[in-house]
């Protein structure tokens, strides 16, 4: 836990300073998680604010301070789901946006402004985003939480409210689908 239970209890009672403390303690982690879940850096802060907004209005429903972290992760996952669903609806917009990004990237490359490491990281991000773009939002988020965020099965159980066996099955299936997309992509992916 990044904060004392007492801070959570105070925030539950409407203490604004305690809520600020909570946000300050968790925002870096939540921003990082959202960055990896939605893969759109420009919208990360907006989604993170939505997470903390939902947290503010649902804190009174939290039974005990001990389950705060899974609760916050659940809110994060839900906000990421909502965002990804909206994005899917705005597919055309996203496509035009991407082409714009690609043009900017090409310009930057031509001018030699982007360093090799940054370029390599960008390639990795794009490769994973494209790979996970081939599977559902549910698969993407579940795999991200397990494989990238490093959440344990116990933690995932609390977030998804399903037992360990069901989670293992879901993870296995999600991984199989990603592997299938991975195979289909020709495995031309960089790792740095």
């Amino acid at each position, binding site marked *: 836990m990044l904060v004392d239970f007492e801070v959570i209890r105070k925030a539950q009672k409407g203490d604004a300073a305690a809520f600020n403390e909570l946000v300050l303690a968790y925002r870096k982690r939540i921003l*990082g998680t959202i960055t990896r879940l939605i893969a759109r850096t420009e919208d990360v*802060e907006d989604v993170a604010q939505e997470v903390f907004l939902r947290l503010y209005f649902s804190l009174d429903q939290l039974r005990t301070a001990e389950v705060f972290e899974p609760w916050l992760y659940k809110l994060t996952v839900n906000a990421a789901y909502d965002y990804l669903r909206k994005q899917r609806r705005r597919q055309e917009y996203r496509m035009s946006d991407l082409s714009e990004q690609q043009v900017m990237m090409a310009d930057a490359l031509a001018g030699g402004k982007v360093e090799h490491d940054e370029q390599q990281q960008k390639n*990795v*991000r794009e490769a*994973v985003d494209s790979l996970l773009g081939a599977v559902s939002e549910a698969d993407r988020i579940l795999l991200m939480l397990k494989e990238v965020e490093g959440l344990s099965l116990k933690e995932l159980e609390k977030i998804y409210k399903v037992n360990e066996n069901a989670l293992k099955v879901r993870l296995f299936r999600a991984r199989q689908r990603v592997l299938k997309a991975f195979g289909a992509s020709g495995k031309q992916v960089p790792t740095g």
Partner: protein
Amino acid sequence: MYPTHRSDDERLDALLRAYRAACPDRDANANFMPELWQRIESRQTFTFSFRRMANGFVTAALALTVALAVFMAIPQKSAPTSPVSYLQALADANTVDAPETVGPVRLDLSDPGR
């Protein structure tokens, strides 16, 4: 690219590890907290207005219900009723003074050749 002897599983794991490294945790910009509080306050204002409007509707509905209940409870002024029974009234309306309606049929038997 990956060496060819590695399995797809291992390649995927390596790719996801590389992704984790390529997307490190980051901090928010300076406006994050003020913007968050702005959103909270705006949501609270909306919720407050909605609640106030809902309360207004509930109060109005309650007042209307009470008014209707009172209206229904007050005995209505009914139309004046006659103390006589229906049959009596009917009989009064069709008195013997109107023989054309209640008198016996008269047969004219004076012209048998017809």
